[in-house]
């Protein structure tokens, strides 16, 4: 019907190896981008931006980052919250130290700093694997949060240990601080998400991504055929941390505006992003988006249904939320261990064969 290759002839290699080889996929991709860039900014309001879209986009970046490390390179990490904190505090220090530089560069530089920190904490991955590596990254999580609480230089010696994002502008429009309009916050996050997703997609399709996947599937075999594990693992940590750092910087500067390390970047954040990746689908960029959407939007949706529509007591809805989200996570993991991305993949396969499945 809609989704099929018939009649879509490729006459050159670049055409054949493009990101979306099927015409319908390409149109869908451009349609999503068009709606995201050209429609949503005009209709979005404060509530939709700060409760749904901005956190969704920011978590999507974090999930892409973790997916590169865990989904593509097979290195389990529980340090995501800590690395997001690095991004946030790096961004804060840069914003206050160089107030004249555009915030975009601060966010990118914060990603770069996080990449360096991530690569440093990735060094143990050369020696240890699996659960042991998870414990090593857990150490990173606790160490980094402790560091940002302990060393007053990171929060410019403020009395409370909170960091506050000063107002910063892009093309004359405030994107951080309280008077930033909803559409500007949304757009700046969207631009970063698009940049990160395109970058991640192309990296994972290139030789670097293939070396990550080789390490993931069987590291000894990969080493024998000439993949350098040092390079593959450390680049995975660095690239992954780069994305996570960007998401941490946006989380602090654009979304919340004020954070403290222990409250916003605790171990629960690491687990949340890990759940997004597992639920969305390991080793899939689309899965990162699906997982982030699932875990950001579902709780808010349940809350609106429970409290605003049905008028139930807030604490009951909050408890039900945990039950329902938990049950859904279990349901998906049992029914579809490869995540939402696999459901999507299966649907596409079915569509391609429809109406003559074999």
């Amino acid at each position, binding site marked *: 019907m809609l989704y099929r290759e018939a009649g879509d002839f490729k006459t050159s290699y670049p055409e054949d190896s493009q990101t979306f080889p099927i015409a319908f996929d390409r149109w869908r991709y451009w349609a999503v981008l068009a709606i995201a860039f050209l429609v949503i900014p005009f209709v979005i309001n404060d509530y939709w931006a700060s409760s749904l879209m901005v956190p969704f986009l920011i978590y999507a970046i974090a999930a892409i980052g973790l997916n590169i490390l865990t989904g593509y390179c097979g290195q389990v990490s529980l340090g995501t919250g800590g690395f997001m904190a690095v991004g946030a505090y790096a961004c804060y220090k840069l914003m206050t130290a160089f107030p004249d530089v555009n915030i975009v560069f601060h966010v990118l530089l914060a990603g770069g700093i996080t990449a360096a920190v991530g690569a440093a904490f990735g060094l143990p991955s050369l020696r240890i694997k699996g659960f042991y590596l998870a414990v090593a990254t857990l150490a990173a999580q606790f160490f980094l949060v402790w560091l940002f609480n302990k060393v007053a230089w990171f929060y410019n010696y403020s009395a409370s240990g909170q960091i506050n994002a000063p107002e910063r502008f892009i093309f004359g429009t405030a994107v951080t*601080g309280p008077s930033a309009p909803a559409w500007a916050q949304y757009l700046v996050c969207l631009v970063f998400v698009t940049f990160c997703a395109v970058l991640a997609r192309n990296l994972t399709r290139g030789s670097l991504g293939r070396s990550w996947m080789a390490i993931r599937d069987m590291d000894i075999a990969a080493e024998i055929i000439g993949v350098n594990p040092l390079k593959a693992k450390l680049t995975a940590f660095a690239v992954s941390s780069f994305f996570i750092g960007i998401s941490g910087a946006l989380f602090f500067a654009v979304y919340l505006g*004020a*954070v403290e390390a222990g409250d916003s970047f605790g171990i629960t954040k690491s687990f949340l992003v890990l759940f997004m990746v597992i639920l969305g689908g390991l080793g899939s960029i689309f899965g990162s988006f699906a997982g982030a959407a699932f875990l950001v939007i579902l709780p808010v949706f349940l809350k609106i249904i429970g409290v605003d529509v049905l008028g139930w007591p807030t604490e009951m809805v909050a408890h039900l939320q945990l039950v329902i989200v938990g049950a859904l996570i279990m349901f998906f993991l049992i029914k579809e261990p490869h995540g939402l991305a696999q459901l999507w993949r299966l649907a596409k396969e079915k569509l391609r064969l429809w109406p003559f499945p074999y």
Partner: protein
Amino acid sequence: MTTKKLMTASVVALMAATPVMADLVFPSLSYRTGPFAAGGIAFADGYADYFTLLNERDGGIGGVMASVPECETAYNAEKGVECYEATKAEGALVYQPLATSITYQLIPKVEVDGIPLHTMGYGRTSAKNGEVFRHTFNYPVNYWDGASAGVNHFLDLNDGSLEGRKITLLHFNGAYGKEPIPTLEALAEKHGFELTTIAIDYPGQEQKSQWLQIRRERPDYILFWGWGVMNQVAVQEAANIGYPMENFMGIWWSGSENDVLPAGAAADGYKALAFHEMGSDFPVFDDIQTYVVDAGKAAGAGDQIGSVLYNRGLYAAFLAAEAAADAQEATGEPEITAAMMRDAMESLEITAQDMEDAGIPGFGPVFSVTCQNHGGDGLASVAQWDATAQEWSLISDFFPSDGEVVNALIKADSEAFAAENDITPSCD
């Protein structure tokens, strides 16, 4: 057929559930779940019940009904922001987030949206300077007053000198717990005592190493800035190492029944600061029984009435209702806006007569608010736990903090904030 039934049912439910649009909206950003729920539930119940009482007994405030839409934050900054955005369009008059981390998110936002924020005994202390923080209020007391009041109490016990004594601040490792450190440092210099700070990480169920350190250092006094489950753990640990309870004092957030009951008789003598009365021995509680509880309209499970934090929620609601009534009187309009509410809060004056009229004589300190001073007069009191009678009682009058030290610090911190954010301090 079933779909249709479901649709009908949900539409009916929607219509039944939508509250009658009341005119005075006091959103309650509560937390009835999570590690701090034990404190959040009681406060939210007290806040809601007082407004229910006003609606049932007096027909609202100045003839206009009050509504208290609740939104669950779980003490989480992200959910707090979501709650704020979700409720602000309903015509919210004042926000009371009951969490220092959410307060920090909201301070810049309320400035832009023009909605007052009341952080009673928590939040950013330097918000007392109303010339910088136009929409944020923290009367009647703040953390720095609390720190100073605690030290003043220790001074009283030692005939006015703490020279060479050791005081330890045991605190939650976050914005809330770090707030008093600058004040205590200044006071340590002034009075010549030695200050050490020991942090407890969220959520604080495990404090063995902290109490080991206390055992080693043997401080003369401990000031404690904890909240939620870490309070009861700390009281229990103090009992375990045999620390003299009368030298262990919590801030007002570390002094409820929840915190001392688990330790049983060992908690006897534990002290906490307070800025309002304890217990249910006030005329207002008879009215709450008649109009709210007996009418089946009590918030939550209705089992918190008269507890310390219930009283605090009730006191917060009382202060908000007084300001709303003042605003109605000043403008002559029954349906006030957030801007009128702000102006009324800025000129709020709580007299002994006001409290008596509300059925809570002598419940809190007498104070007044001005533009320069959004924090009241900083009067606090000390409460002590009696494990046999199982009740908290105030053991002192409301006494002032060291204004000289506290106000200088407030001035410095608020001016730094103003400089960082390009605010010109002014009263108009």
